[in-house]
């Protein structure tokens, strides 16, 4: 069967746009594509992150196990659990309402902050912050010390951010509803920045099946342009030697490796190795395009290999401070 026919057949069987399957076949081969599509059908266990600002990991685990929850430790992060079985809705327990945990849709969304590794006392920017999962993870690693500038453009999602940060007892946040590309106007230089960029969200298909059909190839191009412009603006808010972690829940190389390649070409940046035990290297060639070799140090996560959402993470260090004219 030729690739076109195979793509059509798989697209019909699993309910995707044909263009998506064609791209998967080119990136992963036939066997890898089928494994990926099958894993997307299975879904993911939700993950709870213990809010160590309010309770110890052990105390929370004991309380939830007593109530009948079956929990499995997340391999790389000692304050999070996959929920294998839950007798009640995760968002209605007393422990949730007391702010003892935050619910993540999958393990992948815990990784960007883990890679960023914010420390107490630092100035950190979360550039696409709502509804507050990553912001509150940062606050707990920073022990509520230092400052997080949390920025998001969505009015509705900002309400969720406020509610989540309150519930979790986060104090060291100043939140702005604005386009993150306007952040350089503040003239603040941060130690660390997280850009978990708006994306097509192909990696979220195990959680949200509507994404099989809701995005067109033009959306990838649109997102890639937006991501590059956000990243460019944010680099101006970073101190010399500062760290920026770029992540998406997309598996499209145009939203990931290509964006990184373009900023590496233009700015004094280097890619840092990450303390992540898992993940596949970033692509250096895709769809007839070759990008810089060091992008291999970025990490890709997949549902069929790592049991996570599809995810991309890259850690950048700024070698020289940029001025506003760049």
């Amino acid at each position: 069967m030729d690739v076109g026919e195979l793509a059509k057949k798989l697209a019909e069987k699993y309910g995707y746009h044909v263009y998506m399957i064609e791209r998967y076949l080119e990136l992963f081969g036939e066997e890898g594509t089928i494994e990926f599509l099958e894993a997307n059908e299975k879904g993911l266990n939700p993950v709870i992150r213990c809010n160590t600002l309010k309770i110890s990991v052990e105390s929370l685990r004991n309380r939830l196990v007593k109530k009948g929850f079956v929990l499995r430790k997340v391999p790389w992060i000692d304050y999070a659990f996959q929920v294998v079985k839950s007798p009640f809705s995760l968002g209605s327990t007393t422990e949730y309402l007391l702010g003892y945990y935050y619910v993540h849709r999958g393990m992948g969304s815990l990784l960007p902050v883990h890679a960023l590794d914010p420390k107490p006392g630092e100035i950190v920017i979360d550039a696409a912050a709502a509804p507050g999962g990553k912001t509150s993870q940062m606050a707990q690693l920073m022990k509520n010390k230092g400052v997080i500038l949390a920025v998001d453009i969505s009015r509705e999602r900002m309400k969720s951010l406020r509610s989540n940060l309150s519930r979790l007892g986060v104090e060291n946040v100043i939140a702005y509803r604005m386009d993150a590309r306007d952040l350089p106007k503040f003239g603040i230089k941060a130690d660390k920045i997280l850009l978990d960029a708006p994306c097509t969200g192909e990696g979220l298909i195990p959680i949200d099946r509507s994404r099989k059909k809701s995005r067109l190839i033009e959306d990838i191009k649109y997102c890639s342009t937006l991501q590059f412009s956000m990243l460019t603006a944010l680099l101006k808010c970073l101190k010399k030697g500062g760290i920026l972690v770029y992540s998406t829940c997309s598996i499209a190389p145009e939203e990931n490796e290509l964006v990184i390649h373009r900023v590496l070409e233009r700015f004094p940046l280097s890619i840092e190795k990450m303390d992540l035990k898992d993940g596949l290297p970033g692509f250096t060639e895709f769809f007839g395009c070759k990008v810089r070799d060091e992008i291999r140090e970025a990490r890709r996560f997949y549902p069929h290999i790592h049991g996570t959402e599809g995810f991309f993470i890259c850690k950048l260090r700024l070698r020289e401070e940029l001025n506003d004219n760049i």
Partner: protein
Amino acid sequence: MIIFRKATKKEIVKIEKALNEWAGKNIYKKITSGRIVVIGEGRIKEVFLVPVEVCNILDKTKKVRMPYYLGLFFGEINGEFKISLEGLWLISKYSRERGVVVSEKGEQLFLYGRDILEESIIKVGSLVQIGSKVIVFNKFYEPLGLGMISKFSDKLTEQPKTIIKNILDRGWYLRKGR
């Protein structure tokens, strides 16, 4: 638009007075150590406890843009100071005697926004008076919210019974806070 500014002396006196009633003298000092009281003035007057470092960023950025939110939402001033859920969390360890402890069943009902009946009350703090506001704790002394304790006459038995009317509970995060 909400304008954020430091609290005035008058506002601080109001907050201090309310806190003293909950947790005795010196509570204001304890709670505000390392934090600045900031007022968010829009349609209503909201009170935030803001770490000094965060306040420094506010000072630098507010000429460019006012924030949406900052620090910890501590309550609001609408005539008097009304404490928030997270404000209660902060003061609760100093004000156990102004609270009541409820059973697991009472805890569940209260978090659903319901009142607490006498059967669910396990312990009443020594400073609790009928007709006053009380902090509602679960058996671990975790603050679930705020209630008003009162007596009523049971229609069947004609005996006086205690009830805690729900004023504010953490179930808000489920019902309205998403």
